């Protein structure tokens, strides 16, 4: 009976054993393939995340710069050859002048109010002129009233929407041309304008004057963004308005706004409108059939010659200061600020963290207090970063600094101290694990040779644990460099000079990115600056990590002894 049972079990186990082998192999395969899959997935995610960021970010550095960009570089940083820049500016301005001329000509037929005002001005100036010539009394009265007739007829001509009627009125105005009284006076301006307007009347549908005004304004606004302010205009107060499109991609966007009009047309009652993009020179509702019709095609054909785009490597992006709002310029001060904050935070956090870890592992026993401390450290690691920011503001800036005689204001010191508190748990945990993993035999050997506990720790345990500690540091460097919330209230400024001491606030890459994203409408116009800033931050963190990893690998090599 027993034997039978035994053989039964043996058979069963044999079957199971064989099948277990097969199952194990399947499990192994599943495991390795899922491991491969997850690595592949990680790589894919990284690529999805990093590639567009780097690609878009690099447009802040590598792009086709126009002559406006070279002008800006000369004006702001005295880079480039002044003679070349000037020659180029003259060249493009000569080309642009004809386009300005043509659009102005058209505008004179549209913007009637301005012209009516001007006509009134001329009449007033005529009165002053007569005073200067000492024409008084009855003579003055008659001359002025005659001038008024001319003016009124001219204004009437301007206000006419029927071309024939307007032409008739203009002819009446021009009839006064032969009048000897008006010769050599300001009144001749009316005749000059009347002739000019006659030309316009024949080429513009006056009845649609009102309809041209809107699109014309759109075109003119986009033209300012494309070519900058006109050379004869006063220089705008802000640097951002002093130049046209400095980049070819922006130029093309503005050109598109000039050439194409977006219209939203109703298809059916109660249905959403449909977007329609029409060329302004081919649409009746825009400029078809006007003197401006050929302007758009010509502009398109010549815009490259008027902006002279050239591939540019703007490596100074990483050292240049920016104009307020980051419209032009680079991220130099932000890089300095981020580096300062991060390194200073590390300088505070690393010694403190390593010493605490050493205490927790080496000295403290395993009692309730230590457990509480450990739990607290772990909890601290999970506290949201904004809480640290507010803590930094309340503790360092409002409480501590006034007590120790420092100015109670945002500064690098308080920001880096806050960041230090933020990364402390990570460093403590990593250091603790690293110190724990140093083999007991190392310490015992050292102690056996007569070294004290402190000496053993400094000369044996710590060097052996350093690679592990460095891992913690690497993790926290990235965290400290990238955090926005803790420094927002404690030391970051949206705009400010490069700090001269650690009691001043600084700009930082992370906060700069935030500022660009939420504040100014400028960010909508210069997305490449936003991408550029993010790319710079990522690259900076990568660089810091590479340096730390290099140091770690050298240390590990030294420890292994070969």
């Amino acid at each position, binding site marked *: 009976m027993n034997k039978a049972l035994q053989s039964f079990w043996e058979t069963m186990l044999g079957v199971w054993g064989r099948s277990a082998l097969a199952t194990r192999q399947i499990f192994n395969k599943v495991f390795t393939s899922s491991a491969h899959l997850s690595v592949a997935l990680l790589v894919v995610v990284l690529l999805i995340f990093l590639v567009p960021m780097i690609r878009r970010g690099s447009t802040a550095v590598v792009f086709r710069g126009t002559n406006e960009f070279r002008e800006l570089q000369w004006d702001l940083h005295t880079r480039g050859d002044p003679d070349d820049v000037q020659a180029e500016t003259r060249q493009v301005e000569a080309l642009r002048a004809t386009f300005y001329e043509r659009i102005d000509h058209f505008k004179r037929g549209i913007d009637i109010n301005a012209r009516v005002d001007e006509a009134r001005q001329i009449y007033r100036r005529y009165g002053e002129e007569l005073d200067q010539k000492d024409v008084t009394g009855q003579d003055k009265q008659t001359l002025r009233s005659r001038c008024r007739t001319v003016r009124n007829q001219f204004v009437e001509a301007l206000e006419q929407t029927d071309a024939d009627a307007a032409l008739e009125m203009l002819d009446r105005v021009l009839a006064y041309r032969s009048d000897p009284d008006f010769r050599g006076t300001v009144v001749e301006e009316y005749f000059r304008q009347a002739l000019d307007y006659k030309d316009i009347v024949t080429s513009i549908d006056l009845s649609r004057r009102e309809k041209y005004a809107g699109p014309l304004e*759109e075109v003119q606004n986009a033209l300012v963004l494309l070519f900058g302010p006109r050379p004869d205009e006063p220089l*705008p*107060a*802000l*640097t*951002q*308005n002093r130049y046209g499109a400095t980049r070819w991609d922006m130029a093309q966007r503005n050109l598109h*706004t000039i050439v194409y009009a*977006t219209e*939203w047309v*109703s298809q059916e009652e*109660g*249905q*959403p*409108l*449909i*977007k329609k993009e029409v060329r302004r020179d081919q649409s009746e509702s825009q400029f078809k059939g006007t003197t401006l019709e050929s302007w758009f095609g010509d502009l398109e054909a010549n815009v490259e010659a008027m902006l002279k785009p050239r591939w540019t490597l703007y490596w100074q992006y990483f050292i240049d200061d920016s*104009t*307020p*709002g980051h419209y032009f310029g680079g991220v130099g001060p932000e890089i300095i600020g981020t580096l*300062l904050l991060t390194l*200073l935070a590390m300088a505070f956090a690393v010694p403190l963290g390593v010493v605490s870890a050493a205490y927790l592992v080496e000295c403290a026993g395993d009692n309730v207090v230590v457990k509480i401390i450990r739990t607290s450290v772990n909890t601290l690691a999970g506290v949201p970063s904004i809480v640290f920011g507010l803590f930094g503001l309340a503790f360092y*800036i*409002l409480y501590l600094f006034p007590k120790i005689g420092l100015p*109670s*204001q*945002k500064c690098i010191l308080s920001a880096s101290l806050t960041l230090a508190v933020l990364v402390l748990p990570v460093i403590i945990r990593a250091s603790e694990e690293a110190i724990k993993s140093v083999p007991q035999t190392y310490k015992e050997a050292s102690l056996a040779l007569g070294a004290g506990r402190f000496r053993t720790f400094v000369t044996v345990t710590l060097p052996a644990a350093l690679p592990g500690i460095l891992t913690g540091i690497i993790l926290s460097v990235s965290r400290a460099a990238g955090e926005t919330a803790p420094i*927002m*209230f404690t030391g*970051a*400024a*949206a*705009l*400010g*000079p490069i700090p*001269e*001491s*650690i*009691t*001043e*606030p600084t700009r930082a890459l992370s906060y700069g990115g935030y*500022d660009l*994203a*939420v*504040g*100014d*409408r*400028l*960010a*909508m116009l210069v997305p490449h600056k936003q991408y550029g800033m993010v790319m710079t931050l990522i690259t900076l963190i990568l660089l810091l990590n590479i340096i730390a990893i290099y140091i770690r690998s050298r240390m590990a090599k030294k420890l292994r002894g070969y």
Partner: protein
Amino acid sequence: MKKVVLVAMVAAVVFPAVGLSQQALQLDGSTTVGPIGDAFAEAFMRKYPDLKITVNKTGSGDGAAALVDNRCDIAMMSRFMKENEFRSAVINSVWPMAHVIAMDGVCVIVHPSNPVTALTTEQIRSIYTGKITNWKNVGGADMPIVIISRDTSSGTYETFHGLVMNKEKMAANTEYVPGNPQAHARVKTTAGAIGYVGLGFLDVSVKALTVDGVKPNKQTIAKGKYPVSRPLFLFTNGYPKLGSIVHEYCTFYLSEEGQEIIEAKGFVPLTNY
């Protein structure tokens, strides 16, 4: 040798450089007024190359708090000081003084494909409180309304909440976004969306609605005809000492250059040169 260099580097960083006699100007506050603060700063830096101007943009409330704590010279605010802010200021012997530097309109925007062009404040309130949930109820297409609002801590929200909502609670399905650009981007890409942004954020990719029969533009906002207009403030501790840099900064909006800057930043100036 290495150590000496290291110590020197640390010392250079830690000890403040000489030359602290430089004048400094600190601004803190609203993200809406911030761009004006930046741009004024640019003009001032050109005028006074030695002046150190720092601009922080963390929100109107933080600006008020910083002024109360004497942490800044000028607080930029897109709303007036609240009662408790005023009280704590006075307790700290800070006497807040408001300078209105520009006007801004909170424009209600929809996707350009939306056939609706005008709403009344009552209609907007009904939409935001969730009483109206479809565009067809206000004369539009049969499309559910997606409600976009600024976060509740922003001054823009407070203006809208006070002037349009009459302090009524917003619907539970309201989507809160952290900034004007985000509200703009959200409405631009969502056919049924309604949102609100500052005047400077209007462009062709969104459509501003006529509110109570008034179109938002520089004229209607300057005159206060547009119902959701608001002044933008700089707050100082008392009236700044005449001739001081703070005084010049707070009155810069009166100059021609100041007006040009305010216009360039998309706000409505109070002056008319």
